[in-house]
């Protein structure tokens, strides 16, 4: 990769021929860059209305049964950052994490739709603790999730977990930064993969929605600051910043290596590309964004405030779903680098589009349910008042 290439050249070069090679979700019918169906709904609370609303949204998308009946489902949720850092006294699930009622509701609906096995997965910060333990430390009741359907299990995908070996996911077309990624077995040993994210901003990538959530699939034992040099470490230590954000160290040599070490070592450059690669290598069949309660300003505790947009978004394509998410947040999904929320980073959605994951233009996707324009909760306006988040690259998590 030459350093003197323009960004456009880089994009075009990386994207050539990629679309046709993509391994796409089973229910996507597009031939090249797929369009998506995205359902939007108002949902003010995590009470009984949540499951009813989700059910309606999935009906609008064509029904869950056709997707999951008799299948093994892996659902990646979002438990970002140090769990001991909350936004004031707001609960993590009310700000940065996928809400347990959302997880439980999804598990219930997946079970009801006939899923054979449901794995709820995440790689919480720098720990080998089970997800049950992480939930207990937040005063959640993991048993309520485990009992919401038959054959439900949790797995921490920061490390090998219950698997015998890591699964190799190649980036169709060869990738921009990495040609492939080694992930926990859960991401391969499934028929259906779901990204269950939160509606949030992000200090390094502008927004963190269903695409960015997939960044957290990468195991710390390979991509963490204390990952093994030759082989994955046994235990997960530290964050992914050294490898992914700033390229100050390499992943374990057993994993696919960076294609060109001369590329910029800035998170705002690297993360959108890496996230898009992950979305092509391990595409999600279903993207869900929890926008009932969340926080503005950042992806973890710091600046910002707890807010209640009261919105749910679900779609068949992560780029399309995130485009709707950005619209609901008051941002233009077609925005390129230099304008909020991508003031100091590239657009992950743009790279997702270039790599053939999906299309960010709402007009080219099928939007169902409530018109996104009618449920805008302007993160942009709040950001305008607060000023941009710090960084443009110095921070970041899954």
């Amino acid at each position, binding site marked *: 990769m030459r350093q003197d290439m323009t960004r456009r050249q880089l994009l075009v070069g990386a994207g050539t021929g990629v679309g046709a090679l993509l391994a796409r979700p089973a229910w996507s019918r597009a031939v090249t860059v797929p369009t998506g169906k995205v359902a939007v709904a108002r949902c003010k609370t995590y009470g009984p209305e949540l499951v009813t609303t989700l059910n309606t949204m999935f009906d609008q998308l064509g029904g869950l049964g056709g997707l999951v009946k008799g299948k093994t489902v892996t659902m990646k949720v979002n438990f970002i950052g*140090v769990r*001991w850092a*909350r936004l*004031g006294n707001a609960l993590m699930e009310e700000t940065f994490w996928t809400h347990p009622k959302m997880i439980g509701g999804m598990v219930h609906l997946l079970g009801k739709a006939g899923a054979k096995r449901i794995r709820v997965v995440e790689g919480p910060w720098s*720990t080998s603790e089970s997800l049950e*333990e992480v939930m*207990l430390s937040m005063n959640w009741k993991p048993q309520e999730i485990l009992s919401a359907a038959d054959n439900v299990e949790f797995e921490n995908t920061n490390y090998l977990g219950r698997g015998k070996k890591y699964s190799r996911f190649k980036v169709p077309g060869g990738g921009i930064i990495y040609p492939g990624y080694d992930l926990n077995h859960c991401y391969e040993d499934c028929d259906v993969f779901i990204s269950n994210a939160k509606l949030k901003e992000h200090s390094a990538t502008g927004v963190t929605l269903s695409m960015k959530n997939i960044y957290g699939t990468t195991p710390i034992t390979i991509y963490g600051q204390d990952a093994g040099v030759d082989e994955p470490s046994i235990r997960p230590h530290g964050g992914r910043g050294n490898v992914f954000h700033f390229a100050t160290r390499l992943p374990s040599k057993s994993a696919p290596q960076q294609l060109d070490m001369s590329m910029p070592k800035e998170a705002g450059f690297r993360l959108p590309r890496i996230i898009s690669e992950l979305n092509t290598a391990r595409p999600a069949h279903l993207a869900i964004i929890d926008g009932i309660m969340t926080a503005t300003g950042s992806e973890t*505790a710091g600046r910002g405030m707890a807010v209640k947009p009261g919105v749910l978004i679900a779609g068949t394509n992560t780029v399309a779903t995130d485009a709707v998410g950005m619209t609901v947040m008051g941002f233009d999904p077609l925005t390129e680098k230099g304008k909020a929320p991508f003031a100091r980073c590239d657009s992950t959605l743009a790279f997702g589009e270039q790599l053939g994951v999906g299309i960010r233009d709402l007009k080219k996707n099928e939007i169902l349910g409530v018109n996104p324009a009618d449920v805008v909760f302007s993160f942009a306006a709040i950001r305008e008042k607060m000023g941009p988040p710090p960084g443009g690259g110095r921070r970041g*998590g899954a």
Partner: protein
Amino acid sequence: MALSAESIPMRWPAGPLDIALGEKTKGFTADTAAVLRSWQDPASLAVVQGTPINCLVVSWSADAAQQQALKPLIEAGKKAGLEFVGLIQGEGDKAAAVAAAQAAGLAAVAMEGDAPANAGVPVIPWNKASQVRSSAKSPVTGVADGVFPGLPQGATPQGGPTNLPWVDSNGAILQIARALAPDKTVWVGFDPAPGAKLAAEAYELAVADSGSHGARWVISLEDGLRADLLAKKQPAADTFKKLIDTVTFFEQHKELRTYQPNGLVAVISNFAAPNYDSAEEAINLMPRLRQPFRLIARARAAAASFAGLQAIYYLDKEAPDAALRKKLLAFASGGGTLLVPSNWPNPEGPPAPAEPYLLFSMRKVGKGRLGVCKEEKPDAYDTVADIQNIISHGKDLVRVYNAPSSNFLYATSAQGKQAVIHLLNYSRRGGDALFYVKEPYKSARVVSPELASAAELQFAPQEAGGAELTVPRISVYGVIELEN
């Protein structure tokens, strides 16, 4: 006045011995020598007049020049009600130094290693943390190699969005010293870095880091501050006043020293070679996992109560004696979790493969579990992380949120009706801390040298049980008092 548990010590470098020692160090200046000379002047005692400090620790040896130089200071100090401890460092004629201390009317001496036979004054054992011992003749035992607490050089108070920062604290070594010498008052020695221009809060933290762990820092001021104090410069006086206010706070809350650390996990060790390093590191790391714990000296374990414990980590490479092993296994059989090193001979019970932990292989023992470490030399962090995973957060007694560069210490009164949570902020930054407490306490308030009066705290009951308390921002140190 005799050395006692109530003695409040301050290091008082002065005289030719300190000048000679200083001249061997890099960066020692004529100004520093002048400070050391001026602090041997009895007039310098005005610095501690009206403060709780009642014990000055001076450098001492068999050298007559030092003894003569300090004689006026010691005589004036004793008349003012101060006691003196002679710190004997390095090699030399220790017996002669002790005899000279007795002759000079010192209340005690402090020295490394064993006290000379028939010492005429109490000898405070002044050893590295790894070699802490107690002396029958002294109510005080010392830890000579403390660290000045705070954030390590270059550390950030937040530690990044996704991790906790490391902090320098004496918590581990002081808890070990207290476990080994529970009937003694523990003094810890550490000095500011030469030339360090420390804020008042750094000194407050130094007092609180020790005081919250039931110990006393041998107060040690940086040379520049000592010079400025004698010169009656106001900023120096303000800094010293804040330090003294923190000392006074702990004297006004003496009952805190009687509270015992509480937790669901106990670490049993002899806290000596070859186990010391592993033990200290594990105890240093426990606070990072936000897990309260207690320590039990191996020699006292057979007689110790295991009530309230969910897990015991028997850390030592040497197997326990038969009586202690029997007691530990009874604890496990009764429903507890016993975690042991890889060389535990003939592990009891059948394997429990359904519990796949990274470092410990679990076995079923009666109603409980035996976890045998898979590695001979496990990483300390991995060890405590696995222990946390094994015992589960489900029954956490206390959790703290939003205090990234803080440590906390949970301790309860003998009857269990009162509990306290010491909160130490090592960065002086941060906002309101948030505590979760499992026990249904009836009242909670926070007291602190930083607060003019106690602040009542409101419980926010949690859906899954327990309650949360929001604690107003504490810059350095505060203690939450809980009552049933």
